[in-house]
């Protein structure tokens, strides 16, 4: 049965695309910063999905908007910490590749 193509569907599909692309990027990228980019993509996808679900349904809009704002705030906080961590890790491991961080091997 062919689903109906609604705006929400499109928004959701875009969000899904962002999620998958971000996931792909996290795994595909070699450097840590590359992984951070992927994480940001995924967070964006999540926020978009939350907005679409709230705005385009009978659900009150504020829930979605507050949720997206929270996601954004968390993303910002997380990006701060990611920067600090990346700096520490890079100094510690003397390199920027994620493959170096294999001390927890085995």
């Amino acid at each position, binding site marked *: 049965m062919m689903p109906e193509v609604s705006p929400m569907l499109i928004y959701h599909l875009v969000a899904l695309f962002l999620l998958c692309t971000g996931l792909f990027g996290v795994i595909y990228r070699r*450097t840590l*910063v590359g992984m951070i980019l992927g994480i940001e993509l995924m967070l*964006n996808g999540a926020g978009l999905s939350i907005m679409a679900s709230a705005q385009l349904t009978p659900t009150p809009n504020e829930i979605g908007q*507050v949720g997206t704002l929270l996601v954004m705030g968390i993303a910002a906080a997380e990006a701060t910490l990611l920067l*600090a961590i990346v700096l520490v890790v890079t100094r510690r491991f003397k390199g920027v590749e994620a493959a170096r961080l294999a001390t927890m091997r085995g």
Partner: protein
Amino acid sequence: MPSQSLAYAVLFGHVAFIVVGALMTVLSQNLVRALVGLIMTLFGVAGLFFLMSAPFIGLMQILIYVGAVSILIFFAIMLTQSWSSGDEAQGPSRKRAVLASLTALAPALFLGLTIIFKSPPSLLVAEETEVSALGRFLLEPYILPFELISLLLTVAMAGAVILGFERRKQR
């Protein structure tokens, strides 16, 4: 209808912007170009927010993501000197590409099926809510997440500072 098709055109324009940007982010060899791609994606998403009758959130998107997060990532690139890396130049192996594709496809498959077949009906046009209503919403029912997010931000900042200091102490 011309407005409807215009709307769709704008929508898909934004979607294309997002797609290209995302692909640039993950596939670009140069990290700075990846960052540019990310910024494109962020702008695209902001546009989508605008289209969803949530201008405040769209502006917030731009402010926070493009204005802060992207700069942070840029700082990360600069401080770790990863742009000049020959690592990215070598490129990831074929196996990794397959693995990554597989990982990406798994949620794509399941969540996609869920989205397509299980989603509730949607409105065509979203209602715009006032910012004051949003503000009142944050301060009355959702006061707890509001306070928590501020706490979170404080802790994150403190943590980042400590992480930075710790390095110096070790010398």
